[in-house]
């Protein structure tokens, strides 16, 4: 295996009532940011969750730094998980803990036992400052007292406080207004640049993903339909890619395809995709 490959999905299959992932192969290099796009229900979040064993694939494997997440000992899996942090769609902050304790959960349990409380507070405060939150104002608050955008940023702070080597973002800007969405996207870029962390971002925000990613992948019908650089994505002749890239003239060609898919999936994403075609 290429030593630069940090995350490797090998022929990942997952089925719930219907097949969700049907043989996904993808390698993510060290320090790389890869965005995964796709209509709702295509298995983007499921693929992300297979990375750390939150969802177990029916077939295939996921390797992190060459170590299998599914064919290793519990200790090895635990050690692998310690290097990865997951930013959840709705932040998944612990309701009963204040922001200090929530962010502290991002530290390794053994580190918490040995760290000087003053040093721990500094690290937590630093990570909050890195996501543009004022520690003094939020540390003692409960998650319910914060806005959606602030909760997402606390989720980011929790992810970076332990200085992970890999961060997985599950729809980090969903539900945010454009201003907050842009702020979160900028934070993802700055975290990646500053810490050289390897990132996978599952998102519906096409523009944001093209801006922040080294490569973009498009998941469709359980397989990766496109993997390439943002420039290749913009120039692609694939009708679905064109529809995602919002290239109006070119998307005309995709109209039939998108309408057909909207019949199966009447969610907002497909409706949006249809509207792209209609506008064109």
């Amino acid at each position, binding site marked *: 295996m290429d030593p630069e490959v940090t995350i490797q999905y090998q022929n990942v299959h997952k089925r719930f009532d219907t097949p969700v992932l049907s043989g996904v192969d993808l390698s993510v290099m060290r320090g790389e940011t890869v965005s995964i796009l796709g209509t709702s229900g295509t298995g983007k979040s499921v693929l992300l969750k297979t990375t750390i064993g939150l969802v177990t694939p029916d077939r295939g494997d996921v390797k992190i730094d060459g170590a299998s997440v599914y064919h290793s000992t519990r200790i090895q899996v*635990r050690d692998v*998980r310690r290097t990865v942090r997951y930013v959840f*769609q709705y932040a998944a902050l*612990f309701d009963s803990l204040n922001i200090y304790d929530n962010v502290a*959960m991002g530290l390794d*349990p053994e580190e918490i036992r040995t760290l000087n409380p003053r040093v721990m507070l500094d690290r937590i405060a630093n990570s909050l400052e890195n996501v543009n939150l004022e520690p003094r104002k939020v540390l003692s608050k409960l998650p319910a007292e914060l806005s959606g955008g602030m909760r997402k940023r606390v989720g980011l702070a929790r992810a970076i406080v332990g200085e992970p080597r890999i961060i997985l973002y599950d729809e980090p800007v969903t539900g945010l207004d454009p201003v907050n969405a842009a702020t979160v996207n900028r934070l993802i870029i700055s975290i990646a640049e500053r810490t050289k962390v390897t990132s996978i971002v599952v998102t519906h925000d096409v523009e944001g993903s093209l801006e922040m990613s080294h490569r973009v992948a498009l998941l469709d019908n359980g397989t990766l339909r496109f993997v390439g650089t943002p420039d290749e994505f913009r120039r692609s002749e694939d009708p679905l890619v064109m529809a995602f890239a919002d290239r109006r003239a070119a998307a005309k060609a995709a109209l039939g395809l998108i309408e057909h898919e909207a019949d199966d999936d009447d969610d907002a994403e497909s409706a949006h995709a249809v509207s792209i075609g209609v506008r064109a």
Partner: protein
Amino acid sequence: MTSILSLPLSLLGGFGRGCMGFARHVGQISLLTVRIVSSVLQGGVSLKMIFAQAYEQGIGSLPLVLVTAVLSGIVTSQQGGYQFSSSIPLYVLGSVVTSSVVLELGPVMTAFVLIGRVGARITAELGTMAVSEQVDALISLGRDPVPYLAAPRVIAGMIVTPILVGVANAVGVLTGLVSARATMGLGPEGFLYGARLYWHSWDLFYSLAKAFVFGFTIPVISVHMGLITHGGAEGVGRNTTTSVVFMIITVLVVDATFPPLFLN
């Protein structure tokens, strides 16, 4: 012909699915129990969390346990007194009240209070954590939900329930005594004479052993049902209801198996 067979076949199918579901729950609860024991043996359970849960379950439930204990003592005393008003000496009422409260009403009524107050709350709380991905977040942060969420609740239940049952027994017998004096004219000496006449020390052990088993089954079922919740707010509501039904049935089944096992 098809329509004649369809009803019994669908009933049989429903029964089969019910049995499979029951077996799956039993298997999952058994695995959860093994993981709880393992996490306790490895010293991975925080004492602070156990105390917090014990406080919540114990002190929080005490007022309701006291109310049910008082009412149990009064009702048993009144009903017994009514039945003994002719040929049986009234002092036997002391034994009837003591035995009824210690052997049955104290543990079972306390268990029902804990099902409603603690069990339902645990399922709803953990269910909400599960559907809002907080349990996944815990796992992704390298924490095992069993020592963090399950074990403290179950251990606290096993500590607190026998204490609550002990209090309920004492209060139930005391209010039975007061009630017998107030309405039947049976003085404390007569009541206590009757109570001592048929008293076996084993009865108290039996009562507390029952409480210990209830103190394990109520939180373990509620934790299990909470952690397997999916399907948003509807899923939380559905699993909380199912959990309460499971807990009531389990408590009654355990209660029914105790006499043939320990009172013969």
